[in-house]
Structure formats: C-alpha cells, structure tokens
C-alpha cells in the first residue's frame, strides 16, 4: 500500500514540477506522458501476473480470477502499446510528423486491446450478478469496441508531443473520445459500484478495504482514462495523467494487498 502511495506522490511531484517549473520558453525533453504509460503498464501487468499465477488456483473462483487477470493483461498491453511511440522521444524530439503518425496508429491498435480488456472484464461482475448476460455483455462490448475502432480509422487522431510539459496531447476526434468514454464507463462504473457495495456490506475488514480500493480505483480510472480522449490542453492532460495513475495504482494496490492474521480471523 505504502509503495503505491509513494509511487503516486513521486509521479505527482515530478509531473507537476516539470509542468510548473518549465524554463521560460525552453523545452523539456523528458516525455512524461509516455513514461506514465510505461509505468502503469508494468504495474498492471504485475497485477495480472499475480492474479493468474498466484491466485487462480482456487476451484470455485479460478475462472473469475483468470478472467480478471486476462482483462488486466489486455489492459497492460493497451498501456504498453500507448507507450511504444514515445520511445524515440527519449532520444530525439525532432520528427514531429513521425511521432504523430506512430501515436495515431498506436492509439487505434492499443485501444483494440482496451476494448478486449473491457469485453473480458465485464464477464467478472456479470458472472456474479447476471450470469445469463455474460456472453451478450461481452459481445456488446466487442461490437462497441469494433465500431469505435472503425470510426477511429475514419476519424484519425492528431496527436502531438507537448515539449513544454513533456506530455502527449492525443488530439482525439470528439466523437471517438466520447465513444471511448462510453466504452470504459459502461464497463467500469457498474463494476466499481458493485465492488464498493460488496466492500461496504462485507463484515471482513480485509474484504471491505479491498472492495473499496478496487471499486474506487475503477471509478477514478474511469474518470482519468477517457479524460485523455476528450481534453485538448496540456494542463488538462496532466490532470488526466495523474487521475489515471491514481486510479490504476488503487486497482493494483487492491490486488496486491494481503490480509493480516487479524483480518483472516475476522
């Protein structure tokens, strides 16, 4: 928990500092936006790995845990693909055209993994509440994702690297941005609310904490993620980055937290 808290504080301080203390008219050469994608992808991948290899051996919950792990793995893939075009920015900042082109492609391809992640993820809460709708739910998200991807090909993004802040402005078409936001919100908001409710009503302190952390993390990430797609200015991108990092770290913390003897007794 403490680890994730300090990671967030470091991210918050470094990114805000970089943004606010930029030299007058000068250029920052460190791509903070790309760096945050990388860090988040690694954290989420670690969470997926833990779930799949450490926790999915329980007969009665194996399927759900594996599904959740798979969803997180897809999400990590999305984050990592979003990071990839930033690699040249760590060395040079000259070829704006190339970065914009690559980032647009990475956005479209990366988001396919996001839609996959959402389609797989909805199976988890649906299996608990409305098992009959597991398959229709997944198909719905796949279709919605496919439609969004097609529209995104038709209405491409105009991403650019904001030198002054080190952030990546995604330049997403408003229609695509709204569709992405709908995708994410439909999948994560009900699930987040369900986890929060499960946490609130749980008697076990550990389950309570995990439910609240995981649920709130999903809600925060729901706000932060799509915010990237509907904003245009650097300060708003910074906000979106920080909110997304916070949400993802909360989800990861919810997965990595382990019960104390006291918790397991309660």
């Amino acid at each position: 928990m403490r680890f994730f808290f300090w990671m967030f504080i470091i991210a918050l301080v470094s990114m805000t500092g970089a943004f606010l203390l930029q030299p007058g008219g000068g250029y920052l050469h460190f791509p903070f936006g790309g760096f945050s994608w990388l860090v988040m992808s690694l954290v989420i991948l670690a969470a997926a790995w833990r779930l799949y290899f450490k926790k999915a051996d329980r007969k009665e919950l194996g399927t759900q845990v594996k599904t959740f792990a798979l969803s997180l793995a897809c999400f990590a893939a999305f984050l990592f693909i979003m990071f990839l075009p930033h690699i040249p920015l760590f060395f040079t900042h000259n070829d704006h055209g190339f970065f914009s082109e690559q980032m647009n492609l990475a956005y479209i391809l990366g988001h396919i993994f996001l839609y996959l992640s959402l389609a797989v993820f909805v199976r988890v809460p649906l299996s608990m509440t409305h098992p009959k709708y597991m398959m229709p739910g997944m198909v719905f998200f796949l279709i919605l994702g496919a439609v969004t991807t097609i529209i995104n090909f038709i209405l491409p993004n105009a991403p650019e690297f904001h030198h002054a802040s080190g952030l990546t402005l995604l330049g997403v078409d408003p229609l695509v941005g709204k569709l992405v936001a709908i995708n994410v919100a439909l999948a994560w908001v009900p699930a987040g609310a369900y986890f929060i409710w499960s946490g609130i009503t749980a008697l076990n302190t550990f389950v309570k904490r995990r439910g609240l952390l995981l649920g709130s993390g999903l809600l925060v990430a729901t706000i932060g993620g799509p915010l990237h797609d509907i904003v245009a200015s650097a300060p708003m991108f910074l906000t979106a980055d920080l909110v997304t990092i916070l949400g993802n770290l909360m989800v990861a913390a919810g997965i990595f937290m382990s019960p104390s003897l006291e918790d397991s007794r309660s």
Partner: protein
Amino acid sequence: MVEDTSNNKGVKIQVLLEDIGLLERYIQELSTFFPLPLCFVSPIGVILEVNPALEEIFGYKFHELIGEPLEKIFSKEQANALLAETMKQGGVKNWEMPIRSKLGKEMIVGVYTQSRTDEARNFLGLFLGLFDLTDLKKANITSQKITQTLQEERQDLKNAQKALMNMLEDTDEERERAEEERNTTQLIIQNFSDGLLLVGETGRVELMNPEAETLLGIMGQDGVGKELSFVFPQLTNLSDMKGSLFRVEVKLQDPRVVEVTTISMQARGDAQGMLVVLHDITREKQIEQMKTEFVSLAAHQLRTPLSAIKWTINMMLNKDLGPITDDQENFLGKMYNSNERMISLINDLLDITRIEEGRYLYRPEFEHVEGVLKETVRSYEEEASRKNISLKLKLPSRALPRALVDKEKMSLVFQNLVENALHYTPKGGQVNVSISLHKDGESIEILVKDTGMGIPKEQQGHIFEKFFRVDAATKVNTEGSGLGLYLVKNIVGAHKGKVWFESEIGKGTAFHVVLPIKEEGKEFLKGL
C-alpha cells in the same frame, strides 16, 4: 567604770543587734533567692515563715499563708503525718505528696522537713522544703508510657517476626511443593506421548516437548521463541481456531498424519495463549486407509459382475434373447430390481470410501439451490403419485442468493431426504419440501417434512451413523442401506452447512439443511 562597762555592753549589744539584723537580712535574702519552696512551721503546725518560691508554687500571697495552719497547703492527714514524723524522726526526706494550689492546679511534690530544736532538744518547729515533682512525674509517666508502648511494639515486632518466620517456613514449603509440582509437570510434558506446543499470546512458541520436536522435525532451541507458522507451517487454517477447542487433521511428512487439537488457555476470561496438542494418528490412518481400500476394491469388483447381470436381465426382459413366459418375466423383474438395489448399495459404499479417503471431489460453483431442489422434487413426483402421497414444494417468492455448492452432490442430498420421506410415509400422507432464506440472512434453509412413522427418541442419536437403520424402518422398507443420511451429513458438512431433524413417533419427521450463502462479490474480493 560602770558607765564604761555599760557603754561597752551597750556597744556590744548594738553590734550584736546589727549582726542579728544583718543575719536576718541575709536569711531573708537567702530565702528569697532560694528557688525551692521553703517554710517554717511552728510545733502546732502554724506556718510562720514562707519564701517567695513557696508563694509562687501555691499561688498564695505571703499574708495569706502566714499564721495559717499547715492544712492550708496540705491535707489534714498529710500535715499531721509530717509533724508527727518530723517530731519523731527529726525530719522526713522526699515524701511524695499530692497538693493542690490555690487555683486548683494539682501537683506532686517531694517534701523535706527538718525539726528545729533548742539546746534542750525541745521541739521548736520545723523547716519544710518542697521539691516540685509534677513535671518529673509527668515525664516519668510519659517515659513509662513510652516504655510501655515500646515494649508493646517490641512485642508486636516479636510477634511479626514470629509470623514472618512462620510465613517463610510456609513459603519454603510452598516453594518446595511448587518445585516438585513443576518437576512433575515437566516430567509429564517431557514424557508425554503426544506432542505439546505452548503458544504465547504473541503467537510465538514458548515450550515444546521432545515428541513435538520429533513430529515436527525441529529442535526445541530452534523452535522456542519463533512464530507458530514457522515451527508448524502445515497448520495453515489458523483463522478457524476461534473457539476454545479446535481439532484438525494435519498431514506432515509422508506418511505421518497428526490430529492437532488447539486449546485456548484463559485466565479470568483473558486469553493467555494456546496449547497445541499433536496426536500421531499415522497408524490409525493407515489401518483406515487399508480398510477403505479393501471396501473400495470389493465394491468395484462386485459392481462389474452386477452390471453384467443387469444388462443380461435387461436383454432377457426386452426379449432380445428370445421369448419368455409371464412367470419368467415376473421373476426376472424381481431379479432386476434386487440387482438394482445391490448396485445402488455398492455405489453408496463407493461414495463412503471416497469420503473417507478424502477423494469425494467437490466442484463447488455458484448455483441457485432452489433450481437443484426443484429438479429433484420433480423427479420424485411420479413415485409420490404412485404411492398416493402428496409431495409439495414451496419456493420463495423472491429468488434466493446463489450459494457455492456442488450441484451433483447437493442433488444427492435432496434425493436422499425426499426418498426417505417418501419411503417412510404411509399412503395418503404428505411430504412438504420448502426452501427459504434462513432467519440469520446468511444461509439458505431447506426443509423436508413428512407425516411418516417418525424416529424413536432412543435411536435419534444414531441416525447419521454409517449403516444405521431405525428398527421400524427395516420392516417397512427392506431396501435401504443405512448410508443415505451418512452421505447427507458428510456432503452438507463439506459445504460448511448443518443438517438436523425433529421427529415424533407416528407424526412424522422434519429434516433441516442449512447452507451458508457465499456472496460472490465478497468471495471474489477475498480470493484475489
């Protein structure tokens, strides 16, 4: 000459008078100066002279004492005694007498007298001196009191010393006894045939005996002071050890199996740690396993020929092997039914052996238990109608939360309960099955109630035992194996549920099954 002589005499007299005057003044000044009270008393006991010290001690003025009898300052008896003794002995020394001053102050004085006589030894009076002993006496009394108090305290001290000595002796005896008891306890612990671990409040091992060392394969010095999870890593379900007594079988290094009993130690209601007893049951387990294997093998071996018989009879009954007469068909039908019962019994036996071997696999999934129950009841509707028994199922108006159950095994539980109810309920009777949310809100309750023969009270305690059948039941239904309820209890137990019943002879029996609801959301969060 005569004149001279008379002049001389006159001078001498004058000189003598002056001397006497001087002497008188000297005596007066001396008596005034003298700090001790003095007085001169006439032979008849009249006070003739007093000094200021005496005035002071008695509080009388000079003129109040002069010419007064001695009784003014002493009692009559004291005054008489003083006069008599002085006349007789020439004086008294330090007679202690109580006196009272003019103001009523009581004093104790030491009285000294000295008789005054002339040359012819005629008694002329007496000198009386007083020595105020009041303070001395008071000091004396105080000193006596102090001495007495000291003596008392000394006595108390002596008594306390004595008591202390007694206590010390008692303590010594108690200590010796405690040491003996400790030695005995240590001997018992050291030589106890079961392993013993004493776990402190902090969860650290405080003591372990040699048997525990052998069983756990860890030396005492390596284990004491360490966490229980370090010393005994196989004991994983610590969270279940809530009650004062907890028993669980734990498999150690193959083939060793121990039965672990944890006893919560409490002093005045406060938890003081835990005693963990390790009882080696390897031998019992091996024998049990051999027995189970034998039953399993025998059952398997029996089932194969019985299956062959079943299919052969089936073919004969279907006339696949040629035509048969009605009598033959009747006999073959009975053979088929008997064979079916035998197969059913063997299947039950195999289930029992699997339970005992721990191989009775559970595949729990979140299920709507009412669905499973509905299917089971429906499958018995025909039999109930054939027997003219009213079989009713009451479902809740709102869907119940799903419970984590093994659908197949739970179906077997319901089958056994409904089947029993139908078997032991006479024609025209009723079997009511219901499912509802238990009043605690955390479990589902299934009720199978019949209007059958009931279970005698003296046999109710054995109803869930293996192969047990109620006496009356064997007369009504000869087919039962006595394994059904044993299976029910084990399956329900494996789901962490409870099963119990109420029964009255001639009125019927009601079996209750309570299954805990495990809400998926919370289970999911717990299992991440």
